[in-house]
């Protein structure tokens, strides 16, 4: 069914329960910044008949210190506001860097934290409703596999879909082990970040484990923010305003030159931000040096598969993990825009 910009209702709600009640049909959609939703609509990928504006919801618009020492980000808060918030800049600078490496200043001013988690893949074929795509129409086929797959996945892909999740912010959130707070018709629940996004498997149409009608209310950052040793590196086809071909978020807790704890998440390589607990464990109590980061990279990239146009990502990811580890040791060396320094 194709409908470009069908007629629709624009609804507002005074509070979260009302907003949720309004969603009782499949054709409604929450709208935050609209930076992805409107594109999807104009490209004929979604045709909501009701938009529920969540920008007015107080519960979604706040920052809050948490009792456990963590920090809460409202789902409707803008990406730019989040990146420049003094607490984010001082306690979670990795998140700030990752957000500022994404999109453009204008888009970050509109884009919300919740919307960022739910943005859809940038696979060319997915956006063209005139060609097959298993993510759009399950069972229709995947032209990317034999087509131009430069941006596509090297890890965790399935026969059905090789798309990648394009967010930068989420790569940092994965490394920081954020939690996602959700409210739905059945009440509230919270998901670990790693449980939120899915691998494509047989159901590439499902990007994540949010159920229809559920609302993300906020994102909780844990107390530990790795403010001393962190780096976000983003590699792409131009120096700004392009999605990552490979990105790396690295957060280290150091004792002298010894790694006490390491977190490494990759973006642009899989259907979700990619982490390897095994590699992070490997780095524990190791010296922070190229060799050890290289060994960790080999663990992370185990099982990576390249296709005709994205084979380069395997070596690129390895080199990026090494470089980003070295930049994390000396965060002052980072360039704005997450360009490689050193």
């Amino acid at each position: 069914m194709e409908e470009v910009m069908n007629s629709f209702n624009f609804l507002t709600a005074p509070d979260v329960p009302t907003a949720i009640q309004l969603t009782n049909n499949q054709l409604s959609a929450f709208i935050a910044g609209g930076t992805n939703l409107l594109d999807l609509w104009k490209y004929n990928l979604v045709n909501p008949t009701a938009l529920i504006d969540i920008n007015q919801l107080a519960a979604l618009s706040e920052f809050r210190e948490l009792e456990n020492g963590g920090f809460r980000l409202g789902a409707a808060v803008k990406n730019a506001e989040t990146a420049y918030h003094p607490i984010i800049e001082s306690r979670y600078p990795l998140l700030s860097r990752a957000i500022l490496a994404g999109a453009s200043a204008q888009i970050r001013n509109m884009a919300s934290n919740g919307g960022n988690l739910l943005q859809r893949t940038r696979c060319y074929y997915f956006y063209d409703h005139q060609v097959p795509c298993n993510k759009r129409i399950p069972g229709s086929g995947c032209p990317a596999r034999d087509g131009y797959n430069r941006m596509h996945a090297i890890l965790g892909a399935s026969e059905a879909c090789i798309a990648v999740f394009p967010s930068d912010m989420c790569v940092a959130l994965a490394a920081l082990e954020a939690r996602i707070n959700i409210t739905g018709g059945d009440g509230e629940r919270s998901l670990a970040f790693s449980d939120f996004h899915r691998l494509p498997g047989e159901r590439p149409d499902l990007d994540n484990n949010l159920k229809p009608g559920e609302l993300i209310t906020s994102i909780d950052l844990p107390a530990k923010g790795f403010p001393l040793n962190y780096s976000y590196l983003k590699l792409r086809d131009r120096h700004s305003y392009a999605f990552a071909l490979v990105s790396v978020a690295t957060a280290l807790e150091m004792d002298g030159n010894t790694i006490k704890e390491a977190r490494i998440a990759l973006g642009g390589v899989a259907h979700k931000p990619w982490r390897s607990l095994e590699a992070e464990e490997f780095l524990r109590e190791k010296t922070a040096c190229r060799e050890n980061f290289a060994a960790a990279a080999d663990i992370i990239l185990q099982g990576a598969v390249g296709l005709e146009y994205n084979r380069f990502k395997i070596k690129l990811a390895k080199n990026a993990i090494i470089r980003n580890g070295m930049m994390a040791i000396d965060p002052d060396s980072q360039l704005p825009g997450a360009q490689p320094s050193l």
Partner: protein
Amino acid sequence: MNTDKNVGRPLSRLEGREKVTGSARYAAEHPLEGVLHGYVVSSPITKGKIVEIDTLEAMAIPGVVDILSHLNRPKLAWFDLQYTDMDAPPGTVFKPLYDENILYNGQPIALVVARDFETARYASTRIVFRYHQEPHQTCLEKHLDKARAPKKGLATALKPPPPPPTGDFENAFENAAVKVSSEYRHGTEHHNPIELFATTTLFQGDGKLTIYDKTQGTINNQLFIANVFGLHYKDVRVLAPFVGGAFGSGLRPQYQLFLCVMAALHLKSNVRVVLDRKQMFSFSHRPPAVQQMRFATDINGRLIALGHSTFAETSNFEDYTEPTSNWSHKLYPAPNTLFEQKVVPLDVYTPMDMRAPGGSTALHAIECTMDELAYKLNIDPLELRLLNYSDVDPSAGKPYTSKALRECYLKAAAKFGWDKRSAEPRSMQRGNKLVGYGMATGIWDAFQFPSRVQIMINSEGKMIVDNATTDIGTGTLTVMTQIAADELGLEMADVEFRYGDSKKPFSMFQGGSAITSSTGVAIVIAARSMRKKLLKKAAEMDGSPFRKAKEEEVVFSSGHIHLKNDPTINISLKDIVAFNKGAAIRTTKMGRPHMLKLRKYSLATHSASFVEVEVDRDLGTITLTRAVTAVAAGKIINPKTAKSQILGSMVWGISKALHEESIMDPHLGKYINANLGEYHIPVHADIGELDVIFADEKDNLINELGTKGVGEIGLVGMPAAISNAIYHATGKRIYRLPVHFDELI
């Protein structure tokens, strides 16, 4: 006579304020009561036939007025006779909604007309088309075996085939001491001006049409519309007061113009048609090309053989060619040459001129091949160019009217600090960054077209200059005002240049960097005649001190005619018009190139680009840190707008080298990144420090102004300079543009 008071000054664009405050209206922005909106339906298939169109549901949507397709379109003269536009390549012009055949993906197959744009677009999705699909061929690389010589036609005049072979190329190349044989490749590029293609047609009901169109040629499109729809020329007026970039895409009438006018005539109503960004990828583009290069030198680096064969895409209905194989021999002498230019017809729309067509593609291959030779010879790349420098055009055996390329090389090299380059690849580093220096030469045509200008001096003593040219954002309005003001010794504020209107005297389309020389020269010629007329009138006045004055004895300045030897004796232009009973004094003159005189010469602009890049050793990321381009383009009328042209085209060079490509999926037969999110052009972070130098090139032969045009020359050298810098940084030669950073790790 020229006081040069304004010419040569770095003046800001006269229309700048209107543009940046949004009061400048573009083709889709002219307010119009009761205008109907057309939305184009594009073919989702690449080749085949439309078998059925069901518009029942779409027509029932409130607000939908009509749906035009090949089944119900009005009958037109055009469909029977063969009319083409001024820039049409040899072949059969594509006719929108002609019949059921689909020739390429994205082809317009219907126009939905509705009360508003949203309804038209929505209704377009409720039409059901059934197709019979046929296999397509859209991939240049896969179909090189289809290559053949292009057909010849009118357009061949501006785009000559390569010169015939000289000497014995095969033998010379075979036995040469030093030689390079390489293949260079380019992807497809789409013009993508920010202003979308759009037409607003005012249906006046009296048989007359006023059309606001996005175009580079008001008269070209006026003739096209009159021919196609069987109207009188004088009943069709095409206006393009502002053009938001075009880069060649507006040289030919595009299909939205045709569809808009057809709908306006059919529905007897005002109609507007605006394409969307995806549809901006559904017509002209720079063709992908494969270039086979074989250059050879003697042991001292003197070129002895030049071989250049080009295989470029064209459509299955027109043979578009852009000269590429012609260029090396215009720069470098060599006794043995072999040049070939072939087209490969595919199921795509016809390619079209895009900023520096041919030149930017060719010079990349030529100047990278020269770079390869320099390394083989162990000679500095700049040295190699100077060693093979020629003041004459070796391909024609004629001198250039002027050629300050040597000055470009030397000035740009000095400013850049080329002497600090160490010869070995990978020998310069900053931290993890490999630093590379690269240079390349640019050459481009210096065209002049016939152009007609009317000058009027009105009762206020002000000068009004009329010509049909557009200003595609290059600064034409400002530059023409400068030229005109000086010709009659007036202030800029006392001159009004009226343009962008097919009712004004003739101008060719604005392309090939030709308009400054074309309309500018026509202004000079018309002003000459105006000065005569004014002096003659002044002499007729009672007791006039100018009764016996000869032209060379007077000066036009500050709105007056003065006697040279006694400037206190003067008369204002206003008084002369008053004496003419207040009736404006007019003259209309044609400017045209001096064919006879110029037959003995070759005409070209030249440039030299020097570039520094940093390439990350482990990650491959490429950063263009700085670039210097020196340009020899004759007289520079306005250094500020001219510099903007060069800066813009240098950025385009970065784009062509590192970013820009429309990616064709050969299975689907369509471009898959047809949006500005994924069709990458440089952003600020990709553009380093850019420097522009204008060589002091005096050209008394080329035309009355000594101008050559600056729209393209800044682009041609950049892609090769960047590629050569990348080679110098990394030791890796990447033969395909755009270069992807991952190829460097």
